[in-house]
């Protein structure tokens, strides 16, 4: 079995896993980081979104070994100690989640949207950018509000 090493949430980690292990499996099963979820098997839902080398990526759609040496960030690493990241705070403040299952992927995708579009990102852009993330609970209304608020707060 190959050994894979990467940095996850700022810590170097390594593990011996079968070569066909997905990044999301490595995170959830090997590292016990269960905040990243699996909602589908066709790369459609975005419940598994993490950041790889600073960019949003579906962790169900790449192998752990492809991330050798990469910097991976998951939902667990987003807050600064007890202080929520502005995007986490915006989701909480704007009721951008219900069952919470899509939420880690949504928040990681949202941070990426804010990184790319800045603090003044408009509703249409947000809705368009969310085409890789499905939420069955919220009807997206409050997610869109939350992302706009979170992006604005990140810009400050």
């Amino acid at each position: 079995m190959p050994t894979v090493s990467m940095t996850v949430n700022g810590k170097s980690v390594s593990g011996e896993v079968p070569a066909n292990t997905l990044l999301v499996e490595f995170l959830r099963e090997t590292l016990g980081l269960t905040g990243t979820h699996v909602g589908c098997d066709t790369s459609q839902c975005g419940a598994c979104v993490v950041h790889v080398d600073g960019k949003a990526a579906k962790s169900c759609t790449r192998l752990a070994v492809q991330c050798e040496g990469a910097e991976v960030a998951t939902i667990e690493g987003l807050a600064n100690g007890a202080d929520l990241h502005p995007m986490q705070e915006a989701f909480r403040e704007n009721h951008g989640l219900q069952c919470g299952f899509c939420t880690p992927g949504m928040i990681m995708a949202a941070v990426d949207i804010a990184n790319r579009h800045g603090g003044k990102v408009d509703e249409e852009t947000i809705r368009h950018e969310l085409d890789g993330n499905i939420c069955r609970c919220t009807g997206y209304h409050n997610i869109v509000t939350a992302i706009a608020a979170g992006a604005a707060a990140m810009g400050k």
Partner: protein
Amino acid sequence: MSESGIGAPVRRTEDQRFVTGNGRYTDDINVAHQTYASFVLSPHAHAKIKSIDTKAAAAAPGVVAVFTGQDVADAGIGGLICGWTIHNKDGSPMQAGGHPALALDRVRYVGDHVAMVIAETLAQARAAAELVAVDYDILDSVVVTGKAKDKDAPQIHDEAPGNSVYDWAIGDKDAVDAAFKAADHVTSLDLVNNRLVPNPMEPRAAIGDFDPGTGGYTLHTTSQNPHVARLIMSAFLGLAPEHKLRVIAPDVGGGFGSKIFVYAEETLCVWAAGKIARPIKWTSSRADAFLNDAHGRDHETMAELALDKDGKMLAMRVKTVANLGAYLSTFSSAVPTYLYATLLSGQYNLPSIYCEVDAVYTNTAPVDAYRGAGRPEACYVVERLVETAARELNLDPIELRRRNFIAEFPHETPVIMTYDTGDFGASLDKALELGDYADFGKRKAASESGGKLRGIGFSTYIEACGIAPSAAVGSLGAGVGLWESAEVRVNPTGNVEVLTGSHSHGQGHETTFAQFTAARLGIPMDQVSVVHGDTDKVQFGMGTYGSRSGAVGMSAISKAVDKVIAKATKVAAHLLEASEGDIEFENGSFSVKGTDKSLAFGEVSLAAYVAHNMPEGVEPGLKEGAFYDPANFTFPAGCHICEVEIDPETGTTEIASWVAVDDFGTIINPMIVEGQVHGGIAQGVGQALTEGAVYDADTGQLLTGSFMDYCMPRADDLPSFTLGFTETVCPSNPIGVKGCGEAGAIAAPAAVINAVTDALNIKDIAMPASPATVWQAIQSSTKQAAE
């Protein structure tokens, strides 16, 4: 109103763990020495099983055990049940076939469970499942609702001749026939309520565990009602006695009905954990969820509305064929009967209604309750008929509705419901104002000048929540009563645990119930925590579905809080040396009327536990439980207005605006209620525009078996919503709440299709009104106009 009082938009307690990735869903849990299960599923819609050879699978690396239907039958495990017996028109009980957890000699739909393979790793379990050799004799299948009863349709269950589960009727046929004869106008529609796949984002999962030391079983599972699951597994399937089976539903990632039911997989994980004396974990893939989670809707309906020349409604006649799939799921039989036809009066004064429902077996996944469960189908029939009648009579659809609104309460409908309260005109007025109806013409003209077609559609819905008065549902065939339980435990230091039989899988009970309890007890919200979803902690509960947790679950909490306050008042009176009648309880403090003597809630609870100085005959401690059995259903109602803009070149429908004004009675947390409405509307828009489960008519294969083929609404399919509320307080429960979880999904499909047909100026269009369907409708109406 304080910052966290009743009516305040308090931010949710549970969000801290969800936004930080610390939620704990079933698949996040691992148990020491666990094994993994994979199921062999039928690739055929209908086939005889000639033989199953498990030898190769059993010998594969890592395999711990392989079980077939025969093993389960030999162990005396009962089949999966349907808990509601519907009666045929002639009074005989419905014709129900058996549902073994693993198929015995026949498979009846693609995805039917054939064998269970358990191995040390998931990869090994999956690989070995491929090695189970099943020899099938393929039979003809039928998947189309309207064809199930055809003479040449294959027979699916021996117990159900002609694939008929039941033929049921409600209402006065003679009165309806007479009214139709005398009518000036009859509007008729043939409607299909499309089959949907619930698709909560968390797939179902289960971990079965057995403790040989105690003989006890534990099941972690994705359930909306863990106690009911335990009751069924214990009393009907015979897996273990109730006191030896603990069911835990931890964080659950959405349900929408699909996690109410007891399925084969969790049942088998419990049973097999005992057989192998090791824990077994199973997590559904999305592909399997499409095949095996109970689907929703799937009706074919002929509906007629009789009116007089002034647009006064005289009678309604409805004939529905409901597809229940290959087996009867847990509550399936009740959905197209008592949850459907009883709502056909809508918001209208209808003197007579007659509805016949034929429920049929087909070679498809079982169909059961999905968000709204019967009421979206009813609302679709009523609101499509009303809007179409208005167009045929050349009346404003608003005006036709107003002429027929029920205005006096209580109102008894011809389909056994007694509406307790409401103000339908008020929600309609408010919606018209918020939606700026007066200027619709201008908006339509503006769309047209941009080459787009604009339409407006209304849906003035009513639904029934708060299920349900136990005696009433018992008399209609339900196997259980539908009360709820609660326990309020006050700790010595004055903080409180609320144990509830309701289950939260996104609804925010940890916030709303704490908010309610804290407000009643006058203590800070962070002094209250809510416990749910564990049969070892909460004594019993009926769970969460049918928008019942506010009206029924919280009413039980209210009753228990009353008892806590009553006992604490006794203790306080004794300590303050006053008579009980002189004690006032306000803002968390017991005081003697007209004096400055008082004790804080925490001081009284401490005194009750220290118990050095209790009143005569009063036991120590401060903990009370209550069972609340509702006196009536509750009736949320309101008005949704949808405006669409259609691009005639592409057939693409955009929701241009959405206004919803709902009357949910008393609202505890408006932020959470609005979220529920948003999510409901999104699912209703999904049904109307994007979603539809399709089986191949020849092979019975599910063609829409992934998110690539089954179109879930995404953020850019939906607008932001404009919401408003009106309030008539529900008289039948102590809080005045009605329920808000399903209203959006109930109201929305009719509003969308009314808007699309208005834009296209056609009588009807099939759901989902996808771009292809809309484009074709435009082509055929242009062609007709040219002819």
